[in-house]
C-alpha cells in the first residue's frame, strides 16, 4: 500500500460548500480561494508526488505561479474571509517552498510525513550516532592534542595545519554521506514509481540514519572551524 496513492483528502469551499481535493487552490464552482485545509501536505500543495529528487527550477516556477494566484497583494479589496484565505495560503506556500527547496529539509519533512524521525530531544540529537563512534573519538583525541600544542606555544601556522589535517577525514566521510544520500533518494523515488512499498520503507529507514549522521558531521565540522578560528586569533 502506498500512502500517496490513497484517496486524496477533500476540503469544502467555505463559500458555496463545493467539495474539492486539497491540492485544488481555487473552488471549481465559485472561483474563490479555498480556505486552507489541514489535511494536505507540502507535496500535494505543489501538486507533486512524494519524490526526493526534485527539479528545483521547476519547483521555483510552480512557486511563482502559485504566488501569483494567491499573494495577499491581490486580495487587498477582497472580503475579510477571502483575505484571510489568501494570507494563510500564501504563508503555507512560502513555508512549503522553503522546505522542499532544500534537499535536507525536504528529506526530513518526508520522513516525518511517513512516520519516521520522531521529533528528537536535545540530548538525542547530540548523542554520537553508532556508525560514527570510531571517527568521532579519533577526532576528539586529535583536537585535544592540538589544544595542548597550542598551549605549549607552537606557532599558530603549525596548529592550523594540524587542524586542517584533522578535518580532512571528516570531510571525506561527509562527502561519502552526501553521495549515499543521493543514491538512496533515487532508490526511494524508483520504489515509489514501481509501487514497491516495502523497498521504499526500507530505504526511508536507511535515509533516516544517514540524515542523522550527516547532521552530526556538519556540526562536527563547524566545531573544528571554531578551533581554527581560535588558532587564528592566537596569532594576533
Amino acid at each position, binding site marked *: 500500500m502506498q500512502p500517496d496513492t490513497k484517496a486524496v483528502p477533500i476540503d469544502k469551499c467555505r463559500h458555496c460548500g463545493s467539495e474539492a481535493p486539497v491540492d485544488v487552490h481555487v473552488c471549481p464552482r465559485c472561483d474563490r480561494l479555498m480556505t486552507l485545509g489541514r489535511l494536505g501536505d507540502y507535496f500535494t500543495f505543489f501538486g507533486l508526488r512524494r519524490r526526493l529528487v526534485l527539479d528545483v527550477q521547476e519547483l*521555483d*516556477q510552480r512557486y*511563482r505561479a502559485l*504566488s*501569483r494566484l494567491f*499573494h*495577499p*497583494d*491581490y486580495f*487587498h*479589496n477582497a472580503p475579510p474571509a477571502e483575505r484571510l484565505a489568501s*494570507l494563510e495560503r*500564501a*504563508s*503555507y506556500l*512560502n*513555508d512549503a*517552498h*522553503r522546505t522542499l527547496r532544500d534537499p535536507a529539509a525536504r528529506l526530513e519533512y518526508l520522513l516525518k510525513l511517513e512516520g519516521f524521525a520522531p521529533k528528537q530531544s536535545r540530548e538525542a540529537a547530540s548523542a554520537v550516532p553508532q556508525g560514527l563512534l570510531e571517527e568521532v573519538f579519533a577526532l576528539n583525541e586529535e583536537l585535544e592534542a592540538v589544544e595542548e600544542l597550542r598551549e605549549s606555544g607552537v606557532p599558530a601556522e603549525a596548529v592550523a595545519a594540524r587542524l586542517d589535517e584533522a578535518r580532512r577525514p571528516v570531510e571525506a566521510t561527509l562527502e561519502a554521506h552526501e553521495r549515499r544520500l543521493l543514491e538512496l533518494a533515487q532508490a526511494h523515488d524508483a520504489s515509489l514509481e514501481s509501487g514497491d512499498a516495502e523497498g521504499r520503507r526500507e530505504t526511508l529507514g536507511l535515509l533516516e540514519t544517514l540524515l542523522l549522521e550527516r547532521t552530526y558531521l556538519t556540526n562536527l565540522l563547524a566545531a573544528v572551524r571554531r578551533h581554527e578560528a581560535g588558532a587564528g586569533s592566537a596569532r594576533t
Partner: protein
Amino acid sequence: MSRVVGIDLGTTNSLVAVRRDGATTVIPDESGDRLLPSVVSIGESGAIHVGREAQRRLLSDAARSVYSVKRFMGRGIEDARGEEQWLPFKLGGDPGSVIRVRLGERTFTPPEISSFILRELKRRAEAFFAREGDIDPEVSAAVITVPAYFNDAQRTATRDAGRLAGLEVLRIVNEPTAACLAYGLDRRRQGVVAVYDLGGGTFDISILRIEDGVFQVLATNGNTHLGGDDFDRLLVEMVARDTGIDPAAAPEAVQAIRKAVIQAKLDLSEFEETRIEIDSLPGRAGPYSRRLTRDEFEAIIGPVVARTLEPCRKALADAGLDPGQVDEAVLVGGSTRVPLVRREVERLFGRAPHTDLNPDEVVAIGAAVQADILVSGRREMLLLDVTPLSLGIETMGGVVSKIILRNSTIPASGGEMFTTFVDNQTAVDIHILQGEREMASDNRSLGRFKLRGIPPMPAGLPRIQVRFQIDANGILSVSARELRTGIAQTIEVKPSYGLTDEEVERMLIESFEHAQEDVEARMLIDARNEAETIIAATEKALRRPEFGAIAAADLDPKELVLIHAALADLKQSMGGGDRYAIQVKAAALNQVTRHLAEVMMNRTVQAALAGRAAADVAAEGR
C-alpha cells in the same frame, strides 16, 4: 475614489509619489520642491512646523526642533546613548519602553513626530491633486516604506505614525525592494540584483532575483543606525574641536555647524575640495572658514563606509551567492552620491553600479508602484519580500528557540507547542524576541504576552499550540489554541517599544486639537523656501575652488560687491516675518546673479565639451 499614494518616510527627507495611467510622479509642493526635509519644530504657540521652515528653526530655536526622528522609531532611551549630546532636542522615557522627545513644553513619541511629516505629505498630495483639477483630491491611504532591516517594533511604529496622520497604511514595503521595483519597471529585467541603500540614518543591502515579473528578495541585511548622519556627526565633531564649542551650551551653534558641514559634504561629491564656512559662532570674532579636501573627507568617513561591507557579504552568503553572480548593483539613498561609497560598492560587486534613477526619489516611486498594484489588483508584477530577522521565544535558561528564520519569504508562519509546569496552571508567560543571537537578553524584545484561559489540568497535560504569523508587512501577530479542549486563548501582547491601541487613539484625538494651519504662515514659509534655494545656489558658486579665477576673468568687481550685498540683505530679511520683503530681496539677488549664472553655465558647457573632445581623441587612438 480617493487617491492612494506611495510615501518614502526618510531619515533626512520624505517624499510622496503617485502612479496614474502607467506614469509615476513624485509630487512637488507649491514651490516645486519634491523633497520634504524630515524636520519638525514646535512654535511657542504650539504651531507645528514641518520641512524647510522647521529646518530654519533648528538654527534659531534648536531646542524645539527635531530631525532624524526615524532613528528613534520603535526604540528606547538606552539606544540613543552616545549621540544624545549632539542633538538639540532632549530625549526621555524609561529604559525598555518607548523613547520620548521633548520639544519645548510638550513631549512626543517618535510615531507622533513622524505623523506630522506624513500629514504634511498628505496635504501636499491633496493640494497637488486639487491643482490638477481632481474632483476628489482626498488622500486616505498610502504605502509607506521602511528600511528592510527594520524590526517588528520599528515597522509597527511606522504603521502607527500613518494611523496618527489619518492615513490607512495599505502596506509597509522595504525601501530597497521598492527601489528595485522602480528600476525593473520599464525594462524586462531578469537576473540577480543587489540593492545598496545608504540613507541618512539607515543602511540596507538586499539581494533580489527577478524572474517572470516576480521580484523575489533572496536575502537582506543592514544596520538601522548607520548612514549619512554619521558622516555629518564626525565632521561636526571635527569643527567643534577646532572651535572649542561646547555642544550642551550652544545647541544653535551646533546646528549652524551641522548645516555648514552638510553643505561641504554635498560639495565634495562634485568637487575635489571645498570650504566649511560659518558666518558667526559664539565666542568668535569673525566667521569660521576651513578648507576640506575630498581625500581628508574620505579619511574621516572611511570607517563608517567600511561598516556597510560586512552586511553585504552576509546577505550574499545567506542568498547562497558569490559577488560575481550578481548581475546588477543598484544604488539608493542620498549618501550613495559620495564617491567613496560608489567606489567601495563597485569594488565589492566587481561592476559599476546603476545610478540612472535619482537615488533620493527611487524609493518613493517604487512605493507608488506597489500602491498601484494593491489598488488595481493587476498581476504583471509581484513583490516577494523576506523577514530580515529571526523570530523566536525565550525558553528555559534564557535561551532563544527560533520559530521563523531570517530571510524567510513573507507571509510566513510558525508554531510552537507549550504546556504547563504546575497542576491547574491557567496561564503561561511568553516572551517574543527578534534577532540572531543565542541568548534572549542579546536579542530585541518585541513583547511579552500571557496565555490565559488554559483549562485546569495536571501539569504537562495541556497542549497549547501558539501560532506566529508574519504578514506581508513583516508585522507579527500571535494566536493560540489549547488542542485538547480546542479552546482559543486570549492574548494581550504588551509591546516593549511600541504604543498600545489606546495610546494611539488618545494621540489621534489630541492631534485634531493642533491640526488647524494658518494660511499666511504657510505663504511666508513658501517664500522662505524659494529664497533659500537662491541663497544656496549663490553660495555654492562663491565657494567653488576656481571661483577666484572666474571672477577675475569674467566679472566686474562692482558686480561682486552687488552680489555680496544682495546676499546679505536677503539673509537678513529671512529672519523676519515679512513675506513681501523676502520675495523682493530674493528677486533682487536673482537679478544681480544672473550674469554670474551665465558665466558658470558657459564654463560647465565648455568643460564638458573639452572633456568629450579628449575622450574622442583617446577613442581614435585605440
